[in-house]
């Protein structure tokens, strides 16, 4: 079972990122669950959501304690949240950032999802959409296939720019 924890801020679409990723994995023919940790979140507050992907049905409902991958959709949450908590040794960190971040013992990747969204003028109520471009990054890392990533985005959003930003993130992220 591959377990992913997504850190974001309320209103940034972290929950939707989890749902998109689960849907894409599901379209790859795998079992997947996406599970937001809901509190009384408000816009701007740090939030987490979870994705589990497996070849067998998933019976675990509790929160992910030791993820294989951590996704940080807003680098500023790292100021207050230990995003590496429980991350498996050798695990993966993906950060929405223009610059690389070093985490000894972990594989770290960065991609400017915000910049990609802004280039397409893709924003809701002034907040750049980073979850659909994130799916491109997830595809680049082989978590889901490119085709399923695009299909998942199209199932949830009608605006084709969402696919375009995912493609852009796929191209931009260096692995």
């Amino acid at each position, binding site marked *: 079972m591959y377990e992913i924890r997504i850190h974001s801020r309320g209103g940034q679409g972290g929950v939707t990122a989890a749902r998109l990723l689960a849907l894409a994995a599901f379209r790859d023919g795998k079992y*997947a*669950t996406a*599970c*937001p940790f*809901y509190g*009384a979140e408000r816009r701007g507050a740090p939030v987490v959501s979870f994705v589990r992907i497996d070849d067998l049905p*998933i*019976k675990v*409902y*509790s929160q992910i304690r030791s993820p294989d991958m951590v996704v940080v959709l807003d680098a500023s949450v790292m100021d207050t949240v230990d995003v590496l908590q429980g991350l498996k040794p050798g695990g993966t960190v993906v950060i929405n950032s223009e610059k690389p971040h070093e985490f000894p013992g972990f594989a770290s990747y960065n991609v400017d999802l915000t910049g990609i969204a802004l280039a397409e003028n893709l924003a809701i109520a002034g907040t750049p959409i980073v979850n659909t471009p994130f799916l491109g990054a997830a595809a680049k890392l082989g978590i889901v296939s490119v085709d399923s990533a695009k299909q998942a985005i199209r199932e949830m959003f009608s605006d084709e720019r969402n696919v375009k930003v995912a493609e852009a993130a796929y191209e931009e992220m260096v692995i």
Partner: protein
Amino acid sequence: MLTIATGNKAVAAAVKEAKPAVVAAYPITPQTEIIEQIANYVATKELDTEYIPVESEHSAMAACIGAAAAGVRTFTATSSHGLLYMHEMVHWAAGARLPIVMANVNRSLGPGWNIWAEHTDAFSQRDTGWLQVFVGTVQEAYDATLMAFRIAEDERVVLPVMVNLDGFSLSHIMQSLETVEIGDFIPPHHLTHALDVNNPMGYGPMTGPKDYFRFRWDIERSIRDARTVIQETEEEFARRFGRKYGPTEDYRCEDAEVVVVSVGTLGKEAEVAVDVLRKEGVKAGSMRLRWFRPFPDLDLKGREVVVIDRDYSFGFGGVVAASIRAKTGVECYNVIAGLGGQEVTYDDIAEFVRTRRIGEEMWFGVSE
């Protein structure tokens, strides 16, 4: 069709398939997504229903009662305080013998405010005359909602059915969902005592003790008959759609020496705990209680039983444990866990089994 959906969306999708003529509901976290989705179906004309956005849960159930009395299929959804606010009408719906279907997204009760999963809300309605089923997966939320309409409306039952799913841990999780075309699985709605202006009668008037008693007995008789109807419905569902359900979901119970009994999503997590324990050589099994009313016959004789209650009856004990003791005479280790959305992992459940003390009660994370 195979898709991925939250528990809430699955319930709404089942409602769309069952086509109630009236849906009256009031939003409450974490149920809101169900009625938002139904409102969307109505707006996009995917569902032809009279959607009544009422001003309270008391009115939601009252409106369903009025509509059901007029002879149509009705649905509502609620949670927690909403369920408690409609409590009077929950009794009334069963007493009036109206086959209303309601989804209840299980959530704790304030104060303090807490929006996460707990079963005390539903168990506090156990004496209302409603049938109550608890589900463990998104798929089951969908399937149970479909079956609820058929069971409720069966002439041998004619009682309302409450489909319970855990707040957030099931209502908001995304899992795979296979939707079906029900065809004639749910027969056309027909209520023999629907309002008829050509045959005027007084519905539920003042009734003396002798007759009142007789009508109460008829509720009990019907809810006993419901066992047969549930079984037939679940068998027919399996024949048509390939998914089999029963009064409990048993996992590796055949040769189990210790059985974990639980309700809702904890029951799925318990299956993982059983796998862990089996690897350690413990002959463990999991029994997830699906139907709570009518309460099923449980075969627990000669086994050690660990009951996890995500609820509590103050001054008494866990509701499920108390029910099992009363119905089976079997003692158990009663773990109170998961209240207010407390995290309970399969490792925790395995530990409950390893450290079991039959006859005792333990509040997980609170009492040692």
